[in-house]
């Protein structure tokens, strides 16, 4: 499969041309944000002083970076700087607003985002990307070229700080939510749910199986809803 090489800042045209399942790499400046970034941005209206028109790609990643003896940034955990994305679904309540407020064109995390983010992405023109392979891992990656800025390092530590990083050919990343209202993982899940009906039958679990009385949230016959 072709891998599209994209440059940051991403344009609306860049992201509207992408479909779920497409593979991309990114070159340019990205910024990171985890729990503290989202809570402060939405609940306290405090944002790191970044030019979001030029840096419109947010990565949900706690960074293992520390300050070296001479004040320079150095890897804390491996022999080089590496990005490990964290689960983005926990930032779902903040994401739709942030996409519009900051003008984000791509959000990168592990796993995926929810329905509200998908709607905001289709409206504004933004995509969600997730890991595929040869990412910036301890073993393989050399995408991070340098640390450009760090915000909140002294106050919140490396995992909650917002890092601005220069990356080159970061990826391949896979488009799992496109700007047309599609979610790759929902399609995979729908197929799995269809298949699951056959698996219930294989194990002799009745279609109308319900757990015993007295258990919470079992109305649909499972314990789970998203």
């Amino acid at each position, binding site marked *: 499969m072709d891998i599209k090489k994209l440059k940051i800042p991403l344009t609306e045209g860049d992201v509207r041309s992408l479909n779920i399942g497409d593979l991309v790499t990114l070159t340019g400046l990205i910024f990171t944000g985890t729990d503290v970034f989202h809570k402060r941005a939405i609940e306290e209206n405090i944002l790191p002083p970044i030019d979001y028109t030029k840096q419109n790609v947010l990565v949900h990643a706690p960074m293992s970076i520390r300050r070296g003896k001479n004040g320079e940034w150095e890897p804390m955990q491996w022999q080089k700087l*590496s990005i*490990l994305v964290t689960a983005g679904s926990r930032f779902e309540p903040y994401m739709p607003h942030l996409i519009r407020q900051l003008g984000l064109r791509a959000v990168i995390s592990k*796993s995926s985002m929810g329905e509200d983010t998908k709607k905001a992405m289709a409206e504004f023109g933004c995509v969600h990307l997730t890991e595929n392979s040869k990412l910036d891992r301890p073993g393989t990656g050399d995408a991070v070229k340098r640390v450009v800025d760090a915000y909140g390092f002294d106050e919140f530590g490396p995992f909650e700080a917002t890092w601005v990083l220069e990356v080159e050919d970061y990826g391949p990343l896979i488009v799992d939510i496109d700007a047309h209202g599609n979610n790759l993982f929902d399609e995979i899940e729908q197929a799995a749910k269809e*298949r699951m009906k056959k698996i219930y039958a294989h*194990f002799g679990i009745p279609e109308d199986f319900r757990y015993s009385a007295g258990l919470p949230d079992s109305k649909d016959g*499972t*314990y789970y809803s998203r």
Partner: protein
Amino acid sequence: MTELRIEKDTLDEMMYQVTVRAACIIPRDVRRAIEEAERLEETEVAKGPLRSWLDDFKAGERGNSICPDTGYQIYWVKLGESIKIEGGMSSLYDAARQAVARATEKGYLRPHLLHPITRKNPGTNLGYYTPTLHIQFDPAIGYIEIISVCKGGGGEGPGSYQRNLYEGDGKSGVIKFVLDSFLHSSYSGKSCPPGIVGVGIGGTAETSTRLALEAAALRPVGHRHPDPDIADLEEDLLVQLNTLGIGPMGLGGKTSVLDVHIEYALSHFALLSVAYNTFCAVVRRATVRLEPSGRIEYSDVANWDYR
């Protein structure tokens, strides 16, 4: 049995080495299973995560933690009655704490364990009940064995559940709980599939939860429960879950789980406790054993069977 005396320094070093090995060296059974999955998958997208893990395993041999998320450190210690540790048995707790602190300082473990309410991070991965130790005395053995596990956040957070069902929910209730847990946890690769699914059945909530964890973390891929009914159920669930098409990191494919391991304890006649635990694809366990001869041996096989 002849008394085996262990000096504190020896114990500390064993505990530290086994902690580092758990973080950096992939067990052979898991590596084989990931290699096999990489051959089986047909698309580049499905092969992608498997290949990057195989690269990470090589980086692990060069002293990098094989997954950046080094998770929680959990130890299982098994020892004979003839073992005498310098400073007494409580030295085991000290040894575990110094091992975690040292491995964190050296960069083998990510310093990410923090106060659950204030979110204050001590930076050492040490605190109340942390790390966790399970100790088992076995009068039949003359050695001490320490198993170290790094339990990553992916398999633990979105991949671990426990419920006390009622006896009327029966086998169907248990199997449905396992199937639904898998589908829920593997959506969008949250639990980092394909991993090892551990299931604990029976006992109290605490027992089933611990059995599920031990089934996922300690039993090698391909090993079956000695009870043939349970072994058959393990095989059956393994085959069926792999028809779901979830694939590596939930991106679609043929490999959704590496194995299914079930452990059970007796159940209260009215109740039916069941727990589900995922070990993410990057299973991390290492073992060290000190033999009565004084020989120290490191391996990736955990010998924790006490049914």
